[in-house]
Structures are given as C-alpha cells and as structure tokens.
C-alpha cells in the first residue's frame, strides 16, 4: 500500500504544470461578464499553439459557424465571449499534462471520456436551458483529479489501475483502497489551485454524489452525462463499466426516450469532431 495524504496531493498540485496565465485568468472569471475582452483576446493570441487549436475547434461544425474565423477576436464576435472562453480552456487543458508516466493508465482513453462528457453535458444543458458553457467546462474537467493523482504518484496509480481490474470496481473505490485519497478530493484541490469558480468546484466535488444536499444542478448534469458516455462506450476501454445513475439526477433531467436518443447521437457526432481537434 502506498497511501497518499491529501496534503501530499495538494503539494503535488503546486508542482503541476500550470496553465498559461491567460487561461488561469479565464477560469477565474467564468462567472464575471465585465472583463475586458479585447485585452484577453490579445493575450491569448500571443500563444500561437493555443490560438491555432482554439480556432480549429471554433471552426469545427459542432459550433455551426457559417464563416471561418481566423482570429480570437473574430471567434468572440461570432461565438460570443463565453463559448470562446470555453474553447480556449479546452484547448489549453488538454495539452497540459504529460502522458505515459504511469504504466496501465491510458491517458488517451481519459481524454476521450472527458471530451465526450463535455459534449454530452453541453447538449444536455441546452435541453435544460442551463448555461451550456459551464456544462461543457465542468464536463471536460470533472475527472481532472485523476490526472492530478497520476502525476503526483505515477507508480502508486499503476497499483490503482491494477486494483480496479482485480476487483472490477469503480475508480473512487480503487483510489481510496490504494492511495487513501480519491480523484474527487484531488480535483477539488486542483480547482482551488487553478482558480476555478465555485460553480465549477461544486460540479467536480459532487459529480459522483449529485443527491448530496446543495450539490447543485450542474453536478446532476455532469453525473448523467458521465453515465451516458460510459454507456455509449466512447472511451474505448475494454473493462468499461457504467456507474450507478442517481435517481435524483435522472429525475432532474426530465427528458423522454426520444430526447435521449437524439442526445446519444449528438454526443457521438460532436465527440468525433472535438476529439479530432483536441487530441491532435
């Protein structure tokens, strides 16, 4: 057993690669509408790789643009500030953790799952008339604590992967058994370090327990989107397993079967496009 304390996790979070400063700023301001857009657009454009990835994502048909955008400022004009901010975040976060350090941990599968949950949560939010941009980002980052654990203790996490295979359990059980800390706690620690808004932190904290009082609607959306993506088998993992769906969260969606079937299709179609950009 190689137990890890939450303090160690928090310490390791300090050593994690930090996001470009401008992305930190974007994340911190997700619920603020009064920040100066032109200044931000300019800051983002200094990072060429980030700009290129963001624009490719903006031009994918998932966002339904009739014209090709070629600058961040244009993307903001056509897609709106909130959506563009999301795309920048997605482009930055998916490139920020180094891969291949933990044997048995499939980081490609991790990102396939996260991108699909982002697409699904966004599509669900649209049907719920809930803010689609929060849903997208929360979906993308809901399991980010797993990357924190993998980065903090790659060897120990290999044991987690093995434990889970042996017991055919969930990640949380495996992490608690081997490390003594789970990805939800690690994700909340990272959310603090990366300046996530409270809404986003809540969604990460409660996406496995949306029936906790005060968990919030976003946690319920991410919870259902997570189960759907496991059920659609998108990550491509042999031992994929659908977690138990909390009835409170399912009830809160209030959708009929026809709506879900459309949602499944939309999730799959958007996943193909977004992953082509984000995992390139």
């Amino acid at each position, binding site marked *: 057993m190689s137990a890890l304390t939450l303090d160690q996790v928090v310490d390791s979070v300090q050593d994690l690669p930090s996001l470009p400063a401008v992305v930190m700023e974007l994340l911190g301001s997700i619920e603020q509408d009064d920040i100066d857009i032109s200044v931000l657009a300019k800051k983002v454009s200094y990072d060429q790789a980030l700009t290129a990835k963001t624009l490719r994502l903006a*031009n*994918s*048909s*998932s966002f*339904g643009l*009739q014209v090709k955008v070629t600058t961040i400022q244009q993307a903001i004009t056509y897609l709106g500030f909130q959506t563009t901010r999301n795309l920048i975040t997605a482009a930055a976060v998916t490139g920020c953790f180094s891969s291949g350090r933990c044997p048995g941990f499939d980081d490609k599968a991790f990102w396939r799952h996260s991108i699909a949950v982002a697409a699904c949560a966004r599509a669900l939010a649209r049907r719920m008339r809930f803010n689609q941009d929060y849903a997208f980002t929360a979906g993308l980052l809901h399991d980010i604590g797993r990357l924190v654990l993998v980065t903090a203790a790659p060897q120990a996490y290999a044991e987690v992967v093995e434990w889970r295979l042996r017991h*055919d359990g969930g990640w949380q059980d495996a992490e608690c058994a081997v490390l003594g800390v789970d990805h939800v706690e690690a994700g909340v620690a990272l959310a603090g370090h990366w300046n996530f808004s409270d809404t986003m932190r809540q969604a990460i904290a409660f996406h496995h327990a949306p029936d906790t009082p005060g968990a919030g609607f976003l946690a319920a959306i991410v919870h259902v989107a997570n*189960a*759907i993506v*496991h*059920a*659609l*088998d998108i990550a491509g993992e042999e031992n*994929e*397993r*659908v*977690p*138990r*769906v*909390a*009835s409170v*969260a*399912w*009830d809160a969606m209030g959708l009929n*079967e*026809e709506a*879900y*079937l*459309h949602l*499944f*299709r*939309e999730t799959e*179609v*958007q996943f*193909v*496009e977004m992953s*082509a950009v984000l995992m390139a």
Partner: protein
Amino acid sequence: MTSGMHLTPLTDARPGMTLSDVLLDDKGNVLLAQGVVLTETMLASLARHGIGALPILQAADTAPPIDPAAVQARLDHLFRGNNREDHADWATGILRRYVEDYRLQREVQP
C-alpha cells in the same frame, strides 16, 4: 469541417440521419440546426419548403450493419453493475434500456 459532409438528395434522406451543417432556406432563414437527427415529419416539411438536397453526415448512412448478439453482449458487460430486477436502481435501468434501443436500432414510439 467538410470531410464528413455529403449532399444527399431529399428523396434519399431517411429518418435517423444527422445534418452535418445548418440548413437554410433560400432567404437565409434557419430551417434546421446542424446536428439535428432527421425525423419523418421534418422530411415531409422540408419537401413542402422546396428543399432539394441536404448536408448529411456521411457516417450516418455508411454505418456498418450490426450484429445484435455481439452488441447485446457488450451492453450487458458495460451494465454489469446493474441488476434488471433491482427496482431501487431504476435510473440505471432506464439508461440501459434507452442505450439498448439506440444500439440495437429498435423502433421507438415518440
């Protein structure tokens, strides 16, 4: 992205296909959003609007035929944590049924 796009004559469009792009009428009004899954009703209405062809996502009409037994086996594996008889776990049970209908392409009553 145009690689997956494919202009299909309306007469060849079928319910269940997905629009790869937004569909506009000749005045530039949006008739259907990108990503919409076509239904019988929509196709009839498009005919009335004089739409001749649709941008259809190619993957939708070249989907390989499925092997129902293999699909069901995989779904049972994915949902191995769910017991169909456990009524307390009804939410997972409903998701399971919907995904089965989706994967096995069963006819669903709207």
